[in-house]
């Protein structure tokens, strides 16, 4: 698969069809990969595709397309971010070539908890799960432990903006219900949820890694960064943190594709995807469709359909 990816990337770069290919390359340790920006056919040899390729590379597209056409390696989930970016007019469909990689699931770092990280030499897909090569031999980790939660419930097929399909999508049924996590959450009363989030948001240090890693957070100037007319306090008081997160959540309603990059990037371990998924479920229930499906659809909160949409001013 990796060879096929490199080959395609080379062709695209050699023929001048694209200015650069955004993919993954080996990171500073065997259990992390890092985004790779290949602009020459030689660079393409560095591309990798393995369970450590967790990042949603769509985050780079709005700025990358400014230098010319871009090819990007996307997992089916990340592909939905590309759909959103096109739908929201942040990139032109013609400026991006999506290379959809077949994805059995990506690494859940907790899977490595019992392994001395310094001994890890390689991680690859094997059987249903992954195989970790260490100094003292090979360790197989089964699917339910190896992959992120979002992967265990994933039912996604090729995104609507697929240009190049690499390999065959692995056939498998989800192991978990997509809403298992929020089912628990929804058992809480409104007051209990308030207490839950108040506690989580106290941890927030306002590093904005969540926002910066999010492909849907592309605003030129975030409301929280406004300096002249201050919209939101920069302080980390519970109320100010609450305001930042709730406003961000509202700005993402109907647009969050659930890639989980916000939560993965948060150094403080705040369960941010719970917000996105809860909102997404509401949007699906109210509007009958969700984010990242149809690049020609109108953004849900950016349009109003008298015949279908819920009455904004009910009696």
């Amino acid at each position, binding site marked *: 698969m990796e060879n096929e990816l490199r080959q395609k990337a080379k062709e695209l770069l050699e023929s001048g069809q694209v200015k650069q290919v955004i993919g993954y390359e080996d*990171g*500073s*340790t065997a259990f*992390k*990969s*890092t*985004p790779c*920006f290949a602009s020459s056919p030689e660079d393409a040899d560095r591309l990798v595709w393995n369970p450590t390729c967790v*990042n949603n590379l769509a*985050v*780079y597209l709005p700025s990358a397309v400014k230098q010319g056409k871009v090819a990007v390696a996307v997992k089916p989930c990340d592909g939905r971010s590309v759909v959103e970016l096109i739908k929201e007019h942040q990139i032109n469909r013609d400026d991006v070539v999506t290379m959809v990689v077949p994805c059995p699931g990506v690494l859940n770092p907790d899977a490595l908890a019992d392994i001395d*990280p*310094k001994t890890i030499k390689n991680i690859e897909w094997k059987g249903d799960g992954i195989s970790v090569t260490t100094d003292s031999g090979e360790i197989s980790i089964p699917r339910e432990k190896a992959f992120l939660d979002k992967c265990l419930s994933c039912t996604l097929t090729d995104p609507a903006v697929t240009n190049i399909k690499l390999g065959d999508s692995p056939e498998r049924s989800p192991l978990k219900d997509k809403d298992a996590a929020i089912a628990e959450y929804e058992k809480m009363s409104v007051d209990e949820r308030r207490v839950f989030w108040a506690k*989580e948001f106290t*941890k927030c*240090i*306002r*590093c*904005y*890694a969540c*926002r*910066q*890693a999010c492909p849907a957070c592309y605003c030129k100037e975030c409301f929280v*960064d406004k*300096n002249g007319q*201050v919209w939101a*306090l*920069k*302080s*980390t*008081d519970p109320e100010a943190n609450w305001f930042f997160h709730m406003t961000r959540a509202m700005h993402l309603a109907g647009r969050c594709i659930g890639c989980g*990059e916000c939560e*993965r*990037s948060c*150094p*403080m*371990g705040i369960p941010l995807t719970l917000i996105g998924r809860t909102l997404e479920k509401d949007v699906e229930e109210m509007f009958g469709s969700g984010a990242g499906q149809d690049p020609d659809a109108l953004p849900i909160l950016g349009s109003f359909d008298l015949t279908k949409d819920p009455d904004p001013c009910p009696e």
Partner: protein
Amino acid sequence: MEAKVIAKSDIGAWMKGLADKCDVIAPVKDGDVSAFKKIEDFGTLSIDLPTPTVKGLREQFTPETETLFEYKLTGQQAELTSDTAAQKDRLIFGVRACDAAALKYTDAVNANCEPKDALYFAKRKQTTLVGVCCTTPAWSCFCTEIGDFLANPIMMDLYLTDIGDKYYAEALTPKGETLIGASQFQAATDADKQAAESAKQKVIAALPSPIDHAEKGKDFDWDDPMFTKLAEKCLACGACTFLCPTCHCFDIQECAQGSKGSRYRCWDTCQFEKFTLMGHGHNPRPSKNERTRQRVFHKFKYSPERYGILGCVGCGRCITACPVNIDIQRVVHKLEADK
């Protein structure tokens, strides 16, 4: 200075004794992350000592948000109040050698201006630090490349080394000597001393060898093409710098509510686009190229030139926190090889 031993099982009782005189702060588990918190219940003491904690000591001396003063307006009359009331003395337990070493740097920075940072130094003065030598370094730790403070700790009062069911306790300051005067501490034997020495050597052996980064930093290439590469992938967030124990930059903001309000400072970082944006619209570090260079150059080139010490203690926090795997140790090695 003097050294004694204390049984691990006596740590709780010892701390409880101290709590009469000061706040006792130690790393405890809060959900998935360990954080330094004031210990209230010494009965169910559950200290979590990861290497290192997610956040270091920065917030203990420069809180994420710190009120500078509050004001109240009555007609044309403004009344200013600032919360200078002395806080309680405190003891921080479970400090890692790298985090203590970082205080040497932040002390230098905060003393290098007039007036000196009073809020910071007031807290420094009121704090006693009890360090614990690491036993299992994280994959990202490289403190031994920076300095020898793991074996020869600095900036702390007492240093504990795990020797089985007890700690070998070295007093490093008069404050530390007073601490080991408590009844829970017993005389150390030669065997204890040797056990501590070999425990230290064992952990050091698992870490990288020293490098004279300060010397090598002198020749860093301002135009190193690597920065364009890093800038491409850097997300310009604050994860690396907000977790860094030596980073110290802050923003000053105001919060006005009718006739009253406050001025506060909160953490800021050179990785944010607006950090260097001037009032008239010019930004001397307009792109991520300049900003990624700033972080590395500030720590490994400007700081040795300005204060005679590196602005990095090798704690590895920025390495594990970076969502795109920008690894400062690799970056610095590459810069040193490129020059």
